[in-house]
């Protein structure tokens, strides 16, 4: 028992000694300065002001002038708070100008200048504040920003912000849309929309290319409401598909009645209005659409599919009603194509979805959907039925 008590006492003394040494060492380190090793939080005092030095260099002013501008900025905060509460109907925002000389700028709606100047004068900031005319109050800009969800499609991935100096609500669309598609959004004056996302894609997907679902892409399309773009393939092909490792989300499609088409959006890919026409990869621009009611029997068309590639033929039957093995519950709206004498088989497994077209630049006629086991003919769905699934060939 005695031995145990002596052991406990020795242990306590040892712990106390270790603690004393540790504290002494820490104190000594702090006193010796920061270069001697890690210091406790709050033990270092910066002799200079790196922020002020940075500001001076960035704006080409002396440290004294930098400090003066900071003081003015602090005083402007009170002005901003006052205008936000007391002049909300005419206050269009506040920002700092550095060129040609430092100034606090207040955006003001027409008619609000007098009341804003009075507040500026009251706060003693006349020498540093200038007014800039604007069309929308800051309150209105926030209201416009809040209403974006009602003005833009729910499927659109975007973010937004307010640029007070420009007097704009900025909408940043994260998926690639062309300028014309961006312009198609009906947004109020004061809202600017732009693409801001992944770099403009270096890889394109368009008609004639092989998709991972085993079929062929038909045409680049755009929604009839102009919101989104994408590519088509045949409706009876697998819905899940990709190109170049990029998933192509299924948007809409069907294979019944007069339809045999589906379309997919193309995130992270471009979808220009062109089609592949050779195995080597040559393409044609698509610049026109031919509706079925303007087809003429025996006229010349060509097609491209991943299995049978490029071939041409003639429109043999403009009112073909396929079997259920081709399209269930079909109507007589499909078109049968007979190959030219020198052409081979017009369609085999995998060609479905491929573009049917004429001339260069190409006029879009339709998308391939069925082969014939008894001969080398093929069937296609006229492109003018695509609006049934909400899209049209992009030209």
């Amino acid at each position: 028992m005695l031995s145990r008590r002596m052991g406990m006492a020795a242990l306590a003394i040892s712990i106390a000694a270790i603690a004393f040494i540790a504290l002494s060492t820490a104190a000594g380190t702090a006193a010796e300065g920061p270069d001697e090793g890690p210091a406790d939080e709050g033990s270092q005092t910066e002799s200079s002001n790196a922020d002020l030095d940075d500001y001076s260099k960035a704006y080409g002013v002396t440290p004294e002038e930098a400090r003066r501008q900071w003081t003015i900025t602090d005083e402007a905060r009170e002005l901003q708070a006052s205008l936000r509460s007391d002049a909300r109907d005419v206050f269009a925002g506040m920002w700092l100008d550095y060129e040609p000389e430092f100034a606090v700028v207040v955006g003001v709606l027409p008619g609000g200048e007098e009341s804003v100047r009075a507040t500026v004068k009251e706060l003693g900031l006349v020498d540093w504040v200038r007014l800039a005319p604007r069309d929308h109050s800051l309150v209105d800009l926030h209201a416009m920003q809040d209403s974006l969800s009602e003005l833009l499609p729910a499927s659109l991935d975007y973010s937004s912000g307010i640029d007070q100096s420009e007097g704009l609500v900025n909408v940043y669309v994260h998926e690639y849309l062309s300028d014309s598609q961006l312009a198609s959004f009906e947004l109020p004056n004061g809202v600017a929309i732009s693409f801001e996302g992944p770099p403009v894609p270096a890889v394109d997907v368009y008609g004639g290319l092989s998709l991972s679902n085993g079929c062929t892409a038909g045409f680049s399309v755009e929604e009839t409401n102009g919101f989104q773009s994408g590519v088509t393939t045949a409706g009876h092909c697998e819905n899940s598909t990709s190109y170049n490792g990029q998933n192509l989300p299924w948007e809409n499609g069907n294979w019944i009645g007069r339809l045999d088409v589906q379309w997919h959006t193309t995130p992270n890919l471009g979808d220009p209005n062109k089609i592949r026409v050779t195995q080597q990869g040559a393409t044609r621009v698509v610049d026109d659409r031919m509706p079925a009611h303007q087809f003429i029997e025996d006229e010349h068309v060509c097609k491209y599919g991943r299995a049978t590639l490029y071939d041409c033929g003639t429109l043999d039957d403009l009112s073909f009603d396929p079997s259920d093995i081709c399209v269930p519950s079909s109507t007589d709206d499909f078109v049968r194509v007979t190959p030219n004498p020198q052409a081979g088989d017009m369609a085999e497994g995998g060609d479905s979805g491929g573009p049917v077209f004429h001339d260069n630049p190409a006029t879009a006629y339709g998308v391939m959907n069925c082969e014939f086991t008894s001969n080398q003919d093929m069937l296609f769905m006229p492109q003018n039925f695509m609006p049934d699934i909400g899209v049209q060939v992009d030209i």
Partner: protein
Amino acid sequence: MRIAASLAALMLATTLLVGCIGDEESDLGGSNPYLFTWTAPEGPGDAAAGLLLGRMDVRNGCIYWLSDNGSEFLPLWPDGALLSTEEGTVVVSVDGTAVAEGQDSSLSGGERTRDQAEALLGESLPSVCNPADGYWVATGIESDAS
């Protein structure tokens, strides 16, 4: 139309099937998975020209097709498709082209809904064969398993 199947236990569980593969078509005895076949209608032989890339997967007595994109289909085979086994592996052949379970291959044809598939077959499909993504009216096998 004809549905051919020969999984005895499953046949007892359903009254929807109309037939089974005969001895002349299969060497699987009484443990055949379902092999649903369709007969081409009279006419020029127009058929969907899609292509389903993937491999055959036999599960719970049903022959599925797992696509390279991760979808699961139930193939409806053309009349004349033959079912057999090679060293315990299920093999289906169409017009002399065979595909074994698990072998990368492709089926020409096109997708169907369950209602459309049953309309094509003229019979209801057994509930045990319930693919996650759809049905595929197969017109042929695009690669040779031999």
